[in-house]
């Protein structure tokens, strides 16, 4: 009965023949490979196609306009994960060795896949970049050398949200005695911010109540009736997928003002608002980048890629939140490669070399302007021990048609986030038997 393995090997042989046949992208040498673990099917397809569409468009634009990064062309290959952990791991393993030097980095675009790949990335020396998702404590670079929750983590943006609420209330001291509700997706992603919210509640003296919404969150009447009973001043929404429009509609049904609702960035895309129709008007969402097409970099993509019919996504989705997030990812990822090239030479780099670039990223305001991303990307400076870099978010409001930016960059409360992250990272290191590297020795 163990014959089956033979049978599966036979099937496998056919597969191997398919997988390893030289694809055109592997032929030349001056190429840098980027894995694209996309999800085009399943409940979250809108996010997967938008994000990686923007990312691929940006890389195509850099190839067309500048002939790649310092002459090294970007190449990439898609792998469908269907937002499934196991498929994501397979994609990671399949793509990590492609191209002349292997994968530059890996963007899982799923908290679950981040969890399942970051240890493999550390072992294989492939940086796993989870921009705006993944585990918050991974910002501690000494424990997580190859994991980069760049730009901002859930924990950081959460402190920014409280700051924003404070601003709206007219000062942080006004938060005292206020009632807040945290409606979250009942998963690893949703639970990330509970601890930090509790800490902040104690700090500022507001009352916080957490309401988990069971996946997928098609019907939330019971929860919103309870919220109505509680009568909060603000509601923080940590939703994902179909849970978002449903939550907004339920809020409308109990007559809770949407101007008092605040979403994380996974609750803040056009796809989340549109199904809610007019009910979504006035809803705020945090974002580490704004929507819109009015940036030089998007105009270049239009000129060099989309207008030539070479786009990786329908042209009308350009400028949406997910698309722009992909472009921001592209800008930061390629800048990291560029940084690494300064040290290791203008040639295709290995994951290990790119890790150095990610750790020595210094995206200044001037540099961002030169890249055409002014207002789209925030300044980022990383180091051996700080794998986050930025931490600021902007707030946007839905006017029924589109997002409008309503705040400037609001910085996270790092003095609060950092110790929490270090505590959590230390616990992880202990469980795993990891000795953190000494960052004072590395420059």
């Amino acid at each position, binding site marked *: 009965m*163990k014959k*089956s*393995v033979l049978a599966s090997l036979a099937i496998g042989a056919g*597969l191997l023949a398919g997988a390893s046949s030289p694809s055109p992208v592997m032929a030349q040498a001056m190429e840098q490979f980027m894995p694209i673990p996309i999800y085009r099917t399943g409940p979250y397809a809108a996010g997967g196609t938008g994000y990686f569409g923007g990312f691929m468009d940006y890389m195509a634009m850099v190839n067309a306009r500048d002939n790649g990064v310092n002459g090294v062309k970007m190449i990439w290959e898609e792998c469908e994960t269907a937002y499934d*952990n196991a498929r994501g*791991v397979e994609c990671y393993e399949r793509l990590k060795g492609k191209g002349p030097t292997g994968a530059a980095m890996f963007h899982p675009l799923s908290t679950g896949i981040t*969890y*399942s790949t970051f240890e493999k990335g550390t072992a294989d020396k492939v940086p796993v970049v989870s921009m705006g998702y993944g585990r918050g404590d991974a910002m501690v670079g000494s424990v997580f050398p190859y994991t980069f929750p760049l730009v901002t983590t859930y924990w950081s943006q959460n402190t920014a949200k409280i700051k924003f609420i404070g601003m709206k209330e007219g000062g942080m001291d006004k938060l005292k005695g206020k009632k807040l509700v945290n409606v979250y997706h009942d998963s690893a992603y949703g639970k990330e911010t509970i601890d930090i919210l509790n800490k902040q509640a104690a700090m500022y003296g507001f009352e916080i109540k957490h309401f988990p919404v069971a996946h997928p969150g098609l019907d939330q009447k019971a929860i919103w009736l309870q919220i109505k009973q509680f009568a909060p001043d603000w509601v923080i929404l940590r939703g994902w997928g179909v849970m978002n429009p449903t939550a907004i509609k339920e809020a409308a049904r109990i007559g809770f003002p949407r101007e008092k609702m605040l979403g994380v960035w996974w609750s803040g895309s056009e796809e989340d608002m549109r199904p809610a129709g007019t009910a979504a008007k006035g809803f705020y969402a945090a974002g580490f980048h704004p929507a819109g097409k009015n940036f030089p970099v998007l105009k270049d993509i239009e000129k060099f890629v989309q207008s030539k019919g070479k786009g990786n996504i329908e042209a009308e989705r350009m400028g949406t939140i997910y698309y722009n997030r992909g472009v921001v990812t592209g800008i930061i990822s390629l800048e990291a490669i560029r940084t690494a090239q300064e040290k290791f030479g203008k040639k295709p780099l290995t994951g290990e070399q790119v890790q150095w670039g990610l750790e020595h990223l210094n995206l200044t305001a001037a540099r961002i302007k030169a890249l055409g991303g002014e207002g789209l990307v925030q300044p980022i400076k990383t180091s051996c021990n700080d794998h986050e870099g930025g931490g600021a978010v902007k707030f946007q409001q839905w006017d029924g048609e589109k997002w409008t930016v309503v705040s400037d960059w609001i910085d996270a409360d790092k003095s609060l986030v950092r110790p929490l992250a270090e505590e959590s990272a230390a616990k992880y290191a202990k469980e795993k*038997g990891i000795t953190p590297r000494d960052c004072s020795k590395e420059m």
Partner: protein
Amino acid sequence: MLYREAGQFKTSYQKDQAIFPIRQDRIAVWALLLAVFIAVPLLADDYWLGSIITPLLVLSLAAIGLNILTGYAGQLSLGTAGFMAVGAFAAYNLNIRVPELPLIVDFLLAGVFAAMVGMVFGLPSLRIKGFYLAVATLAAQFFIEWVFTHVGWFTNYSSSGVISAPPMHILGMTIDTAVEKYLLTLSVVAVLALGAKNMVRSRIGRSWMAVRDKDISAEVIGIPLLSTKLSAFGISSFYCGVAGALWTYCYLGTVEPAAFDLNRSFQVLFMIIIGGVGSILGSFLGAGFIVLLPILLNNIAAMIGHGTLQADTMANLEHIIFGGLIIFFLIVEPHGLARLWQIAKEKLRLWPFPY
């Protein structure tokens, strides 16, 4: 010609009861074991071992578990992933809370915990049958998922509710490369599969089948329904539990409860139906089919649809082909791949003189 049993006589009861009564089969099995233990680790690279063959073996084990329950004892279950989750979380908690225990003992105890949970959820099977039972096992699936998401103790109070497999040591060896993980998985799966094969040929297996075919008749001839059904649930869940522990330790590494969601249950159910209900071999064949097909389709899609707008269509086409092939196989051979294998063997026995 080569595959012929002429001249092999069963002269003792022992020979009559062998798992593989035909000499050629025995040789083939030994050759296969040699191949998978020695040749495969030497030939296959990390990608194949770590991300295709290992998960395939783990899911085969889960499929054997479900096959015991559904294929042999006739109780349709959709709670497989839930029982896998019990195994995974039990192994994790044993490992960090009782570090003195050897890893293999952790795995086995994880299976025992899963078996206990499985038996509790198996109790309704005494009254509920068919699809009613299938939907009732969904209660197990959702309830278990919920418990692991909500009770912090199980995840060692991790803020996000994920568990991360600690480094593995067996007899002082550290198991961390793809080859070592593969060999560990293979050993566990091989031993348990052999156990399952023997079990279904023994008294307990035969009483399962009697219950499957007609439970009232089985009761009439003196098979106790309670213990038979519960033992099927227990042993099935034991297999699923060990599979869950392996899934966490040897494959994913860090998991959240959502890694054991309903889709995983369905995936395992696919495997036994495509592979063959009531066949240990079928569990492996089905797992091979269900794991490899989407990857194969995706590879083909990547070759054709690279960097074009058609990629969307390709991704959906994969879905369509996958669904279509399932229907196709059911129509062509409702008894699964194992049946095809059996037919091939029958043909081979007579070849080249079928008349």
